[in-house]
């Protein structure tokens, strides 16, 4: 069972600054962390490896400092890691990112399952998983909360929906995105950290990926960010106090007073 996990390094804060020129995130001076949702993806992959054997490969598209995150992935139990890094990849939206990841996965060749986090905490789009599946022409299941079993080239998973969950079977290879309910990620081990320190993490650029220059980075992006801003806090907001009964009563009164009901 060979598993590929897609990771992204994100700013470890919710107070991100936006570059007014490029409308992209300002990363300088902010401690980076592994996107929290991706840590569940990595843990899910490591547990599958422990159960079924095989290999876990962590990949990430990002600047050279993402190497540090990939080493952390190895310290947690990933067998190998590959960094996708090239100036040409800069400014990528989800489409260009998915294309780049898909090129890498195609180059890796041997895989049974690709696991992503449900979304990142910086971009928050949740698009890379499904786009990746589309580009690789693989089945995709989003919001997986449990991997029930893997058998005879089939997987059976639970996926979270509004009211409960669905059980889905799909042939492998496939792409899934996971939610935080799937597991509690482990902490690194001392032996893992030692292994991570000496691990060789190759960096693949556009050339190694044999990528179409027009489909990576800013050039390959179908979207442009025009503006990013924090929503204005509503000045007329009011928080109702008291017991649930009295809150409902005063809410109804206020809605009536304002002619809303």
């Amino acid at each position, binding site marked *: 069972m060979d598993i590929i996990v897609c990771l992204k390094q994100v700013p470890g804060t919710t107070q991100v600054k936006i570059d007014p020129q490029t409308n992209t995130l300002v990363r300088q001076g902010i401690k980076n962390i592994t996107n929290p949702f991706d840590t569940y993806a990595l843990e899910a992959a490591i547990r599958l490896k422990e159960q079924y054997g095989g290999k876990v490969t962590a990949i990430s598209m990002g600047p050279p400092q993402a190497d540090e995150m990939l080493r952390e992935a190895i310290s947690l139990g990933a067998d190998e890691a590959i960094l996708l890094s090239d100036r040409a990849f800069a400014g990528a939206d989800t489409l260009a990112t998915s294309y780049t990841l898909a090129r890498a996965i195609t180059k890796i060749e041997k895989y049974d399952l690709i696991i992503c986090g449900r979304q990142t905490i910086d971009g928050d789009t949740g698009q890379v998983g499904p786009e990746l599946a589309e580009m690789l022409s693989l089945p995709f299941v989003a919001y997986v909360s449990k991997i029930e079993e893997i058998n005879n080239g089939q997987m059976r998973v639970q996926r979270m929906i509004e009211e409960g969950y669905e059980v889905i079977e799909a042939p492998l290879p496939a792409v899934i995105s996971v939610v935080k309910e799937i597991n509690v990620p*482990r*902490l*690194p*081990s*001392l*032996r*893992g*950290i*030692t292994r991570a320190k000496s691990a060789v993490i190759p960096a693949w650029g556009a050339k190694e990926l044999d990528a179409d220059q027009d489909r990576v980075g800013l050039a390959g992006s179908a979207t442009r960010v025009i503006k990013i801003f924090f929503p204005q806090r509503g000045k007329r907001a009011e928080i109702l106090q008291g017991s649930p009964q009295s809150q409902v009563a005063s809410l109804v009164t206020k809605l009536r007073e304002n002619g809303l009901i």
Partner: protein
Amino acid sequence: MEYFLSEQQKTIRSLARKIAEERILPVRAELDEKEEFPWAIIRDLAASDMFRVFIPEEYDGLGGGCLDLCLVVEELSRVCSSVAISYAAVDLGIIPLLEYGTEEQKRKYLPDVAAGKRLAAFAITEPMAGSDASAIRTTAERVKGGYLLNGTKQFITNGGEAELYTVIALTDKTRGARGASALLVEKDTPGFSFGKKERKLGIRASSTRELIFQNCFVPEENIIGREGMGFIVTMRLFDKSRPGIGAQAVGLAQGALEAATDYARERVQFGHPIFSLQAVQHMLADMVIQVEAARALVYATARTVDSGAKDVSGESAMAKVFASDMAMKVTTDAVQILGGAGYMRDYPVEKMMRDAKITQIYEGTNQILRNVIAIELRKRKGRRD
């Protein structure tokens, strides 16, 4: 302060801190309240290779020494001393094996201890034998193929939870202290049961229990060293383990210092944070001086142990005494700085103060250890090397 730790030691320290902050901090008050042995955390420590730290590489360990152990204990104790001592007691339980065990014994037990699959414990104290360890009454009578253990051990850390016990018992009642031997006893051996679990002032999540031996047969291959070596084994053990108690005390005091500093910066009285009051500043300054001085002594002692120095009784005793007396003072002052809030269980410092008390008592009371220090002083005529 620069302590010239190796890369490996820095890694160990930062991972231990991460475990303490992410896994122990959220549950420490609950563990204390419920007096519940922290099994989930023990498993996290095992998965992170923390039990490998103090075990030689040939038995699946990482080959660290006393200082490496102290770094882990200090970081765990900074957040919760119950967890720290449950961890350190494993080291206590296997030091005799490491020092005097046969290759066969080590191969049999150490890999499982390194993996955290088996916890260990050490048992010498009895109802009638505390500081006067030579007064033990538990006997190990020679029978065909082994020994029959009879007697009761008291206040045994990790009792009931550990799988492997190093027990000191008399193989020859006529020879007093020279008639004691160290035996490895596995949990679930017929005739070995557990008595009451103690309800304690502090370190409440750790397990402290009686061990009861009733015609408990222990095979002869489980003796550590030779018959009659029980007290030599014990003295050597404590010389190596006491810096660990010092580290527990330093961690506790560090935690209390941080809590008191944070509180003093935020608590406003008379229109200013109480940190601006010189009375409070001087208390905190004294606290940080004491903590750092104790840390320096504990680390230096641990390094002396790791250097292979033959006689470290005096040094080990000094590190334990100074650090534990310091922890009692610093945690008490932390409660004082937090005032009424500090006395409440909503804040961690009352627990730290309760936890600190035991460090002055176990692994040799500070009074007994001052005797040890004085004996060494007399031997060396007050000179230093």
